[in-house]
């Protein structure tokens, strides 16, 4: 069991926190007392920041909606489907008909990639739940 120092992924304050790791899994979050920003305090989201990592609701495979029902598909199938549909929509309505939503649960690098994708695609509509 160890306390691994890291930064909270949620909002822009960037509170320091320790992820409690045991057996290779993050099982808890604890405040980082000596961190200059958070000084050993966390908001309720920070205290539970470890929860989404192994949450049972987390997706384990891509899903495509068919007849109103989400079905698991392979990555190849999902990517082909997305590329085909997005191109079709851009062709018909223009690329700024598509909005891109990033996430605070992703890394900065992943969010950057999504931003790049949006720009290449031609849409200015990209946002993030913490307005990154």
């Amino acid at each position, binding site marked *: 069991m160890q306390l691994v120092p890291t930064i909270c992924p949620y909002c822009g304050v960037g509170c320091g926190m320790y992820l409690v790791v045991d057996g290779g899994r993050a099982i808890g979050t604890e405040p980082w007392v000596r961190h200059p920003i958070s000084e050993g*305090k966390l*908001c309720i989201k920070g205290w539970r920041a470890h929860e989404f990592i192994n949450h049972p609701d987390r997706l384990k495979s891509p899903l495509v909606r068919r007849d109103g029902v989400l079905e698991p598909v392979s990555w190849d199938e999902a990517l082909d489907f997305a590329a085909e549909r997005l191109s079709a929509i851009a062709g018909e309505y223009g690329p700024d008909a598509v909005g891109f939503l990033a996430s605070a649960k992703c890394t900065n690098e992943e969010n950057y990639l999504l931003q790049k994708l949006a720009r290449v695609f031609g849409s200015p509509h990209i946002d993030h739940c913490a307005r990154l």
Partner: protein
Amino acid sequence: MKKYWKSRNEQEAALPGGGVIQAVARAILEAGAAEGVFGYSSDGDDVRPAFLTDAQSVTALTVPGRPAYGLARLVRDYLRGRRVAIFGLTCDIRAVVELAKRNSLDPDRVLTVGLNCDAMPQAHPRPNCLRCEYPRAFMADLEISVGDRACAAEVHSERGEAVLQAAGLAEAPPFALPGGWEETAAARAGEFTLRQADRKERLAYWFSQFDKCIKCYGCRNACPLCYCKDCYLDAGRGLVPGGQLAPARLFHLTRLAHVADSCLNCGQCEAACPMEIPLARLYHMLHKELSGIFGYRPGVDSAPPPLISFDESEKAKTESIFAPRR
């Protein structure tokens, strides 16, 4: 009986405290007295709690100065059932005593080594530290006051004696403790003045403090005495209405009612509060009054907490044993 020690290993003896903490920790691990040592460790930059299972890693163990982290509660949350040796400050050790009473920790599986605050630098104490009446961890198996080149150690149980022997330390010349404890006595006295304000002022003060609350549950999460699996303050329990900030004042009054009889004044609640509500001050103030009535010292007495026990002699009394103050 207090005796002075340092490590027999020359390199270790050059460490602060004469390497005594490291030698004791190593002895515990090598003898298999615990699966791991849970104490404060330094990586050069940060001091944080660490669970050390490898005898080589004990060199990272350090004396935290302040603030304490609440090690007992961390053991309960993340190391339950494992055989652990806690190297903590007095408040950490007192929390172990209270958690054991609540069956949250098995005292047979937790060895305690106390690091006395009376030997520590007095810089940056938390407000609750100023009110603390336990500079020495005499309730631990082994208590240690860390000096520059040596430590003073006192044994309080057979386990503690065994551990000290196993560490194979060399005797060291006595040293005087820094004496900073007396310097803070005046500041400590100042911590008890709030009770004297009149009732209306007190109410306005505390309600204005509670109104700062953002309901982060930090106080509840950090408190060693909040051990309920299903907390009364959680959403859906029907006591505190959800979706409301600041939460209903019942949130704080409920926590107060639940822990005041055994509040250790460890200060973890106040340390965790992002809005800097002086929680430990309120809880400790009420606790001091209750411990006057019940004669109970949490973390020290082995009696069960007063609110889940009673004395046979009380059956004969029918009046309130508390006279309200104006």
